[in-house]
């Protein structure tokens, strides 16, 4: 017990050292891209003008016009901007965690360093769980904090531009927007994302522990082949052509995990993006009633246990 208390932080630190780039640099680059996007937009807007309903506006006129919009509409615009920013961060987070987990129990077997890790008094259970903890806690923590910071900086940058053109950022941006509500949505989104994604994460750990080569292909094609097999099995046995349920289960799951604010997966319509962020969060949390989440968690427990078991035997690729 005493060693577990010291070992777990050390294992998490280990993951951070190895994946600094993915966990810290990726969200920072993403945030910089948003800021750079605004600057580029600003620079192009200086030189050009836009036509709205046949009337030509310069940037300055546009900013002044914005102040005249009703607060409702301003709220929709700015909340929409922030929600899209956080949604994109969560999407990239899923992709980063996906590849992190695929390599988590594979890369050290490939380069032989597993023999070093296994020479230390750390159990395979501790090792595998530390990788899972990294995926569901460490990586999301970096992304959520940096995403929140990026949202803030985007608003600050836009405020500066508004100020430069004689606008009033308080009434145009900061009053109508619900920044803390957006941060709440971001955290809730990260939690719902991981609840949906846990069975995928478990599956990735399992493939990572087990694959002798090409874990990516196995992780992707085995489920697709299973779905394909199910479809054709039903076509051939009962001549029914509407057996897409395994396909749709996979796509819905990946959709939820990638875009947690979106409703369902095959229809990627974000629910009311731009309206009240807390309302979006509340709707999203409604999914906690969906039994699919709990089947998924059971599947995650099975796959992670299998990954631990395989980790005991597999020391090479």
């Amino acid at each position, binding site marked *: 017990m005493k060693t577990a208390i010291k*070992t777990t932080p050390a294992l998490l630190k280990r993951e951070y050292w*190895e994946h600094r780039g993915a966990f810290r640099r990726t969200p920072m680059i993403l945030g910089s891209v948003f800021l750079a996007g605004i600057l580029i937009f600003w620079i192009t807007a200086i030189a050009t003008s836009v036509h709205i309903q046949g009337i030509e506006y310069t940037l300055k006129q546009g900013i002044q016009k914005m102040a005249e919009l009703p607060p409702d509409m301003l709220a929709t615009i700015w909340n929409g901007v922030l929600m899209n920013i956080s949604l994109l961060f969560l999407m990239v987070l899923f992709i980063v965690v996906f590849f992190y987990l695929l390599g988590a129990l594979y890369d050290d077997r490939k380069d*032989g360093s597993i*023999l*070093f890790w296994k*020479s*230390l*008094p750390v*159990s395979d259970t501790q090792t595998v769980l530390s990788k899972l903890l990294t995926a569901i806690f460490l990586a999301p923590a970096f992304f959520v904090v940096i995403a929140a910071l990026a949202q803030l900086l985007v608003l600050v940058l836009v405020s500066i531009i508004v100020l430069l053109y004689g606008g009033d950022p308080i009434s145009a941006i900061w009053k109508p927007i619900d920044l803390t509500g957006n941060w709440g949505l971001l955290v809730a989104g990260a939690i719902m994302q991981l609840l949906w994604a846990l069975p995928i994460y478990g599956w990735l750990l399992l493939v990572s522990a087990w694959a002798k080569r090409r874990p990516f292909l196995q992780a992707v094609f085995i489920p697709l082949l299973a779905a394909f097999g199910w479809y054709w099995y039903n076509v051939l046995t009962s001549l029914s052509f509407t057996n897409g349920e395994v396909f749709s289960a996979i796509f819905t799951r990946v959709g939820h995990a990638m875009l947690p604010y979106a409703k369902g997966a095959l229809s990627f319509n974000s629910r009311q993006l731009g309206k009240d962020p807390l309302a979006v969060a509340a709707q999203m949390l409604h999914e906690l009633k969906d039994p699919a989440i709990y089947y998924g968690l059971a599947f995650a427990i099975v796959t992670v246990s299998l990954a631990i078991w395989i980790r*005991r035997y597999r020391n090479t690729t």
Partner: protein
Amino acid sequence: MSVIIKARNLGKKYGRFEALKNINLDIHSGRIVGLIGPNGAGKTTLLKALLGLTSYDGELSVLDKNPFKQRHQLMQDISFIADVAVLPKWIRVNEVLDFVESVHPRFSRTEALRHLNRTKIRSRQKVSELSKGMVVQLHLALVMAIDAKLLVLDEPTLGLDILFRKEFYDNLLNDYFDHQRTILITTHQVEEVEHILTDLLFIKNGEIVLDASMDEITENYFEVLVHPDKLEQARQMNPLTERTIFNKHIMLFRQSDKQLLEPLGEIQRPGVADLFVALLKEDQQ
């Protein structure tokens, strides 16, 4: 002296291939044991079983623990260098020190730094920036800073130049081995370790073909530089091997009575490599 490794009918099968067959052995503490065998003889499989890296049949206890089931407890008392360059490439020297310090109760950072200060390795360097020899120095520094009861070295110096190899074994003997600890070494470069070994284990086709202390070997195996006129007489005494170097006939005998051999020529202690070759050939006949 206590028995720290005990195997009874130890076996391991990969499908239909038997990598280890009925291994029985006792290794006592305070010994430096050389595990010698050709490629594919089962050395690595045996080490993997001892280190809890693979399942096995039969009985095996290492420091009174079942290695496969209790690997992580066992690793508090065992260190191993499984191969050259298994340290992860991305890690920095100070990070690997931090990590081992926080997970290993018997690791002394001061001790590790003492060893590292004698090298050119700097704490901010990544393993990928170190030469192969430096990686081994780093690994050895880590391992020597762990107060372990058993140290297992599997080809620890493979691919290193002679300076590093020599320094490696010198450090090991002078700074680490204290006659309480046990060291188990496998290597192809037998000549480099034979002067430090106290015991020999020869393994072939998954079976132990020789399990003896160096003292027993010097009492039972003799190499004779046979006088040209004693050749026939010598051959009748069934030498294990006979080889000719610069027209000199060298024969290896298994004979407990040294006096019988003395009339044949000059007697010397056989090299481990020659003995190994002789025993493998004998086994094949």
